Each structure stands twice: as C-alpha cells, then as structure tokens.
C-alpha cells in the first residue's frame, strides 16, 4: 500500500493537541475490527459480511480467527446488503462492511427496502468514509451518505469521533434490534480526553464548556473543534465543544441549549454542506425558534479538490485554523 498519509494536524495543532492531552490513538476502523472480533467470539450469530473489503475493513484477523463468521460476497454491494437482510431475518446479526461510498449509493435501495423498511437488525458499516481516500478522488469519497440515509426511516446513524466512541458504538450496535449505520474513517484519531463519558443512544457529549461560540462536530471533525476551542481560549474566548456521534436521532436538547446559550453555532462535518448534520442542526434550531449566527463547515457543493485528507480538511477549513477563523468571523459579525 501507499506511504502513511500526511497528518491532518498542522505542527501547531499537533503541539496544542499534546498540550490538551488529546493523545494520538488508532484508526477508528482498527478499533471497530478489534471490537467486532471480541464480540463475535462470544456470540456466534455475529457475522462480518465483506465485499472484497476484509483488507480495507481490517477484518483479515477476524476471518482467520472465525472463518465461519466471515461471509465474503465479492465486489457486489447490492448483494452484500440483500444477503445481510436475509441473514438478519433468520436470527443472525450481520455487520455489512464496505467502503461508505459504495455501500450507501450502490446498495441504497437494498438499505432502504431490505434493511430499513423490512426492519431487520443489520449493522451497515461504512468504512474509509468521508474523504479518507484522499487523492483517490470523488468516486471514493462519501460526502452524500448522511444526506441520503437521513431521509430513510428506521435507521440510526452513528459517526464515532474517537476510539472510545467507536468501541461503545460497536458494542451498542451489536445489541441493537433495529438497523444501524456506522461510519468510520481510516486515519488514526486522537483520544478526546479521559473525563468520564457515557455513551447513550441519541445523546451528544459536551466535551468542553463555553458560551462564546459552540462547535458541534461528528466523527473525525470533533478533534479539530476541540483544537479550535483551545486556540480561541488563548484569545480569551471560551467555546463549547459538542461531540455529536448520533446524526440520527439528533440530540436536540443539547443542540438547542447550545443555540440558546452561545453567541454562535458552527457545525463541522466531513460531508457535503447539503443534507448532513449541519442542515439537521439548522432545521432543529429553527424549529426551536432560535436565531443565532450559524455556519456549516463542510465540503461545498463542488467537485472536491484533489489532495490528501489533510489537504482537503485544510482547503475547506475543517482544521483547527479554519474552524477558529470561522468562529472569529461569526463572533465579530463579519
């Protein structure tokens, strides 16, 4: 494979991360694979289904340890999801693992009908999500998945930010009776602190208190929100940071509190500006009658710039530098 991808953290951001105790961890994908293997050893009904994706899904050790619990269907995402639905209807607990881009577009009709409408407990696992594939380009990016999946009833959408959220999300998904979508990137992530956190379905976590701007992140953008808040603290601005792994159902209570109590709200997501967490938050804030300076930091409606995930995050302002600047602009009414 290729050389390690360039870091998504600038040297300044990396120094601040160390200072804030946001230590570098594993890729969430690796944690997913380890957790799934641990769960599957104890529960023979748990299956990993792959579409020639056991390598990219880090599931080769799973296949070696539990060959009867790994179902390979070849490069055929529609069949991956359809078979997962049939297995789930007969009492198995399948995790259908495939790159998020292909899983959620190629097999969208199977997700909608065979899994969600039929209401069978399949866990859909979108791997190498967002812009994880970097310079491989738009064919491999999934910047649409939250938008299309949000419009499908009966699906929990969970985007873990760090290794801890990942482990908790996978454990929860293994017990869920309804369909679940999990979304993982492939770059190493940083631990979002050691404070006591509780993973509850549909609940966001306030990682940092503050009432100037509120940053709401999901998945791999959350750490950049924390870094932006750290950078702004040096300027005397105290910003709230919320990790929102549950894109659906949305924790409207935590969101609305942020909208009421903070001077500005910025939602950061590795997704299109259309239809993702940002628009979900905007809509919920409007329904609650809250008018607050608001911005969605996400990938604009264009062909994504060529580059590594780090290049893409920097280009579209999803790093510490871009997010802190967005807060300054909103707070200063620019």
């Amino acid at each position, binding site marked *: 494979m290729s050389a390690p991808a360039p870091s998504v953290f600038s040297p300044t951001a990396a120094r601040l991360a160390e200072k804030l105790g946001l230590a570098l961890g594993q890729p969430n994908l690796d944690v997913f694979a380890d957790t799934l293997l641990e769960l599957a050893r104890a529960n023979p009904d748990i299956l990993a289904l792959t579409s020639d994706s056991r390598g990219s899904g880090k599931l080769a050790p799973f296949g070696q340890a539990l060959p009867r619990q790994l179902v390979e269907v070849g490069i055929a995402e*529609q069949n991956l999801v359809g078979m997962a639905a049939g297995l789930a*209807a007969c*009492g198995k607990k399948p995790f259908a693992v495939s790159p998020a881009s292909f899983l959620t577009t190629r097999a969208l009709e199977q997700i909608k009908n065979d899994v969600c409408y039929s209401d069978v407990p399949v866990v859909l696992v979108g791997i190498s999500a967002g812009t994880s594939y970097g310079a491989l380009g738009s064919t491999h990016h999934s910047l649409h998945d939250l938008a299309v999946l949000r419009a499908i009833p009966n699906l929990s959408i969970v985007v873990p930010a760090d290794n801890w959220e990942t482990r908790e999300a996978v454990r929860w998904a293994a017990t869920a009776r309804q369909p679940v979508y999990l979304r993982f990137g492939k770059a190493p992530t940083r631990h979002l602190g050691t404070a006591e956190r509780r993973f509850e379905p549909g609940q966001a976590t306030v990682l940092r208190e503050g009432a100037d701007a509120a940053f709401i992140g999901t998945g791999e953008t959350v750490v950049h929100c924390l870094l932006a808040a750290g950078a702004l603290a040096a300027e005397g601005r105290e910003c709230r940071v919320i990790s929102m792994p549950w894109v659906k159902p949305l924790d409207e209570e935590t969101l609305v509190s942020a909208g009421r109590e903070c001077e500005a709200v910025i939602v950061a997501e590795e997704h299109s500006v259309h239809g993702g967490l940002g628009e979900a938050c905007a809509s919920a804030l409007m329904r609650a009658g809250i008018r607050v300076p608001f911005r969605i930091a996400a990938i604009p409606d264009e062909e994504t710039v060529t580059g590594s995930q780090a290049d893409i995050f920097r280009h579209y302002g999803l790093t510490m530098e871009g997010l802190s600047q967005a807060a300054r602009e909103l707070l200063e009414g620019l």
Partner: protein
Amino acid sequence: MPATLMTDRELQFKSIAYRRALLQLIFSAGAGHTGGGLSCLDILNVLYHRILRVSPETRDSPDRDRYVQSKGHSVEALYVVLADRGFFPRTDLQTVCRYQSPYVGHPTRKVPGIEMNTGALGHGLAISAGMALAAKLDGRSYRVFTLLGDGELAEGSNWEAAMAASHYRLDNLTAIIDHNTLQITGPTRDVCSNEPLDDKWRAFGWTVRETDGHDVAALTRVLGAPPEPGKPTCVIAHTIKGKGVSFMESVPRWHHGVPTAAELARAVAELDAVETRLREEAA
C-alpha cells in the same frame, strides 16, 4: 404445516377459486397487478398446499420454510392464498390498498405470513440467499423459495446473488421464475432479451428444472424433488400472463389493468364454466 392431503383435482378447484378471488380483490381495491397474479397463482397454490412447511401456527418457528416473493407486484395473488390458508381473516382482503391498511400494494411483514418487504425488483434472490445461508450456518433444515418475474431478471442484482448462492453451495434455495415472457412494455424478448434463460442459470452454477407453471401435478414433482447436493435450484415455470381469463391471456395491458364490473363478470363467468366442466369430468 405438512403438505395438505388435497388431490390434484382439488388443487385445480382451488386455483379456479383463487383466480376468482384475485379478480374480485383487484376490482374492489381498484388497483393491482392482474396479469402477473394470474400467471403465478398455480405456483403459489402448490407451494402453500404441498411444498412449504409453514402454517399460521408455525409462522414464527425458526425451522419453517421461507418464501420470499421477489416479484412483489403480484401481492394480490399471495394475499388470496395466505387468507385461504388461514394466515389472516379473509375479510381483511377488503382493506387492501385502503387508507391505513397494513395490506399494501406490495408485500410487507406487517401481514402475517409475509417474510420480507419486497416490491422493488431484483431484491428477493439476495435476501433468500442470505436466509438459505443462515440455515446452513445454523445447521437447520428449512428450505427457502423465491419467486421472480422473468422481466425482473434484467436487474443485475439477481446475478450477483446467483453467483453467491452457487459459491456458498446453497442447495436449500430454490428460485422459481414465473416465465410468462411478458413485462409491462411487451415481450421480454423485445424489451431486452434474457434468453437463453436455462443456460444462464446453468452457467451460474445452478441446477435448472423446467415445468408447466399451470400444471399442479408437474409443479409438485419439480418443486418437491430433492435438490442436487451443493447446488441451488432454478425452476423455470412456463406460464401465461393473465392465465385463465381468455381476454387477459398474454395481453400486456393486463399487467396492471383493473377489470371493469362488466369485465369482472365476464371473467368470473369463464372461470365458472371451467369449474363446471371440471366437476363434470370428475363425476
């Protein structure tokens, strides 16, 4: 439910009664897929009386046989047979397609006896392959049957599933093709030919068996025959779209044509006449 003890003749009477009920159902619902329903009714009749080990009492048993109707648009035929087999009261059929009814115009699991929500084409075979694989993994002896339209076979997802089913040696899986040679636009041969069908399935590693899809004795023999070990079975059932009503047979517009009161009366009169003739033969 073990196979019922009905004779071929009794099943033939059932088929006539089902055709009448189907037409009345579509007439009263004001919507439905008439032609395809008539073409697959004899297959459903044989499945639910002689092949499938499932009943209202065992419909939640992990060992029941599974049936998935991939050609979901022929749901009215399935409703008629399930009602007759006691999965739900026959009077429920009056609500088909009505406001807030669980009896949607395509199969849903809200209806007792229906395994999966289908209706978008090209989904049932993959689902059934997953069910058949679950049986293998769990060491259970149930079989899985799915019914596909021939026009439906243009969906590429069928062939993904066909490959996987033979890769996993799912000899507990049977795909029945309702081969009426027509689809909504016209003859499948003209729309986008899928011929030769038998060779395609064989090339994908399946055992292929052909039968008259309206002959209950022949259907019983083919669907009841043990599979070839290690291979899934494809039953190509040669059928006539609109079967049993002369002015509907092989006429594409009856794909989802709804009969008028006069057309319904004519159709029922034809079915009554066939029934009378059959009774005379039997006597």
